[in-house]
């Protein structure tokens, strides 16, 4: 059970990383227009 002292801080670090990626993706506009893609023709095979 003492492994928790390592694993919980580790999970904290991971979640901070994940949130950081998510936020930076939004800031770069990757989530701005999700509807457009479902209507677009697959034109570049």
């Amino acid at each position, binding site marked *: 059970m003492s492994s928790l002292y390592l694993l*919980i801080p580790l*999970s*904290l670090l991971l*979640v901070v990383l994940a949130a950081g990626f998510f*936020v930076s993706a939004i*800031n770069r*506009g990757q989530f*701005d227009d999700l509807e457009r893609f479902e209507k677009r023709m697959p034109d570049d095979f």
Partner: protein
Amino acid sequence: MSDLAAPFTVFDAPEVLAQISTPLAAGQREVLLRVEGMHCGACVRRMENALRDVALQVRADVPSASCELRWQADRLPLSSLLGRIKALGFEPTVLPDDERYHQARMQRRAALKRIGVALLFGMQVMMLASAEYFGEVDPAYRTLLRHAQWLLATPVFLYAGWPFIFDGFRALLARSVTMDTPVAIAMVAAYGLSAWNTVAAQGHVYFDSVAMFVLLLSIARFWQQKGQLLAADRLRRLLSNQPLLAKRVTDDGIEPVPVSQLLVGQRVLVAPGEAVPADGRLCDAAELDESLLTGEALPQSRRPGESVLAGSVNLGMRPLELEVTMVGAQTVLSQIARLVQRAQMERPAFDTAVERVARHFVWLVLVLAGLAGFIWRADPEQALEAALAVLVVTCPCALSLAVPTSLAAAVTRLARQSVLLVRTDLLLHLGRLSDVCLDKTGTLTTRGMRIARVRVCAELDEAQCRKLAARLESGLNHPIARAFTADQTVAPADEIELRLGQGVFGFIEAQAHAITPVPAAQAGDQGGDPFLRWFALSRAGHTLAYFGLVEELRAGVRQAVQGLRENGLNVHLLSGDSTTAARAVGAYVGIDQVHAAQSPQDKLAIVRRLQAEGGRVMAVGDGVNDGPLLAGADASVGIASGAALTQAHGEAILMTDDLRGLGCLFEVGRRTRRIIAQNFAWALSYNFIMVPLAFMGWITPWLAALGMGGSSLLVTLNALRLLRGGSSYHCSEATNPEAVT
């Protein structure tokens, strides 16, 4: 105050003011603002109170957090008004219309980030919290788990939950409440108590509940904003066709200038495929796509001297030149955008009353929560849970969202079909109507006539007769004259004289010519086609030819009238025209209550009589000579296509030549009323059932958050249903004007 106004002084310069605001009568101007932080009716009221003595009119719209402000521009600088708004804690921004969409997108990004953070961190909190659900945890690990939860819950609470906390407490500081106040109190209480218990190593922690509140509420708020983005998007599309640069023609050649610097009277060049930058008069013939403005899908041919509207696209192969007649906020396109915007901001009296009820309801919730805590005081844990549940589960949002979201969706839906709603009240009234009065000329018919038959009775051929007639009628601006001159450019006759009721007289090559109305029998039309109106062209008293003219009916009139009938309405035809002509049109479109030869005052008298008999009357007209009719009716619909928009009156305006837009209006109205009723039924029954349950302590806080978020989400989604489905008819489809021969 003055230092708050300082950053806004840039807007006071006259040339900037001209770009961002519309001039109204006597030094008044109107400007569109985005007001960051305006979230509910209470915020609107505070702003209205603060601006009461400086602004002439404040129209605020909560769903899009924007506000239209009318003020006396020659006495007050705009910056002082903005400073006052800022002093209330809001963040005002002046909007050129494109900005609005940009803002909505930035808001969407922020909302998504908040949801992401709440989800990622919240899941961790719940995972760690679940350890304590299953029994006693060793105190050493419990301390670790609780501190970890605290750490994880803090970004959720402070970042993702910030909008709710900020709004809720800001209102409290102003001694008012908003929809967010109960939630904010619940979140702060749960978070604070949990942090205290963690430090003191005692009792329960509720970090998981806090994370759950924030996550569910953020998701619900995000969907609400989505509706607002859809509306803003429609406006952006209306305006995106407005180019930023224009090619101005000067003596030295062509120079590109910002559209905002164009002046009336200047000439501009529009390249093929480009949009016209300002309203103007054509110097060359042109083919234009006006679908954005009128919904008319077919290319429109325009001759030199005719007007073109900003936003229409040059479909021709050559650049076209035009002389600017209207710029900026005065162009028809800007007016359309403004009308759409205003309709979305309009708050029916009914809606304001609901808002007031919702606010009282919030106070009631706060009292009830306190009461719940008091009753369960023997068991502090139970007391807190019950109080939190009451605070969170009640959903005044659903109540206050029920009407505005539905109306906003309806406006967007109708605008897509080229029906502009000027007053949203109209949709609520449509169901109570009993009679519809349709004007004939300009409403059932276009204002145009055309030559349907020609009978030549002299040695001349048809083309020569037409040419003679065109020369006689040229320069006259009457529907009959336009029918003769429509497709010819000829030298006008000499001494043209129009004698009312008798015809047109003039001299061609020194011989007296005349065009006079004649009875059908004289023209040899034995069949007596009631739609034809006959005219004789004569030279020195000797008849050369007979012309049979018909009125052009608007597209879709028969379907429109039939649709009105199916809605259970009595349809009346009012006309200033002669009895035969009116009856012929009435018979063709299927109206038997025909009132012919009516002056505008007579038409109004008919409406008054119907009203006196207990009827509720809708009038439909094109606003040219039926102003009293439209003003006197209980509901009014104007018809306008293109440039005529500026003359149009009415609570709704059809922007197509197609009358079936009336059907769209009734159908969307019916669906809107149904959805509003559903939303109300839901909001009321939900609160009546959930509040007692929470009071009894039967609902855990996270379940309460789910219920509240789900409830406001349901109301919003239900309203957004208006945007899709329904009528298979699209007003923008290509339409062929019907003629009746």
